[in-house]
């Protein structure tokens, strides 16, 4: 009986996007609806959180906008509003939630790059 739900959820999961990990620097092309029109907006920043699984998997990207204001956006990983995700860089991190970055600015907020082995 419960597999009706599982099959619905499995059908909703997107498989065309790259895997994300905390510490990745990404460009998210997200669909923005402005009145009637739709356009793609690019949001570039650092993945500070990936949570949930299946169709409920979501991730938060943090970037520093103008005047040093931190902006975080969360997307549902399988949402059709996510157009494309480009992973630019992986960083070496030891925890799954990079909330400590919120208190840091400038040089202190840098992470060491992790090269693909």
């Amino acid at each position, binding site marked *: *009986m*419960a597999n*009706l*739900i599982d099959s*619905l*959820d499995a059908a*909703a999961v997107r498989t065309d996007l790259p895997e994300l990990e905390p510490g990745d620097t990404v460009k998210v092309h997200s*669909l923005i*609806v402005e009145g009637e029109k739709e356009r793609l907006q690019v949001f570039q920043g650092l993945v500070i959180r990936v949570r949930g699984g299946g*169709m*409920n998997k979501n991730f938060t990207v943090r970037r520093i906008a103008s005047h040093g204001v931190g902006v975080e956006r969360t997307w*549902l990983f*399988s*949402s*059709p*509003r996510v157009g494309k995700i480009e992973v630019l860089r992986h960083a070496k991190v030891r925890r799954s939630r990079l909330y400590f970055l919120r208190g840091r600015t400038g040089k202190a907020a840098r992470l060491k790059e992790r090269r693909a082995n």
Partner: protein
Amino acid sequence: MKGILGRKVGMTQLLTANGIVVPVTVIEAGPCYVTQIKTAARDGYTAIQLGFEEVKPRRLTKGEIGHLRRRGASGQPSGLPMLRILRELRLRDIEHYTVGQKLQADVFAAGERVDVKGISKGRGFQGGVKRHGFRGGPRTHGQSDRLRAPGSSSAGTTPGRIYKGKRMAGHMGAAPVTVANLRVELVDPERNMLAVRGAVPGARGGLVLITEARKQG
């Protein structure tokens, strides 16, 4: 008027094409069979009786088996399987139905509005605060033992008694509840699946009756 019996499977979310998340309850609905038609002439009212969930004949009483095997007016066999659950659905337009007719989830289409009736989860014996939304007493100002008290139940000498129906602590839940006007989001007759927007009374696995919404719009 149309309806179908089902079992609540549980809740999940659907994503629409433009990325909106819709909370839905998945119901395993049907297949149901029309097991009897009540007519005004013979029964004094009109209704159809729906049967749901096939079972082995030995799980039923002889009376139930006899009811399901009953031949029609012209003597032809009913052709009905053995069914565990029988429920009546009051409606006027009984001409659309014949005994033995199979009803599946596709009696409803996506976008239609339905009412869903089920037995709510039993809450046991509950106090007035939970059961009727009483506010309880103050936490401070020298109060003791008054936090979730029901307050006064009546006046004094007049009327000198407590009115019937006075809301008090008591058994809560496990009662029929109907949720009106839910949107059908998904219909899959192959898998006997219906998904309706929002929550539906009862525990997972509970029996629910889905009918056309009575108050539309």
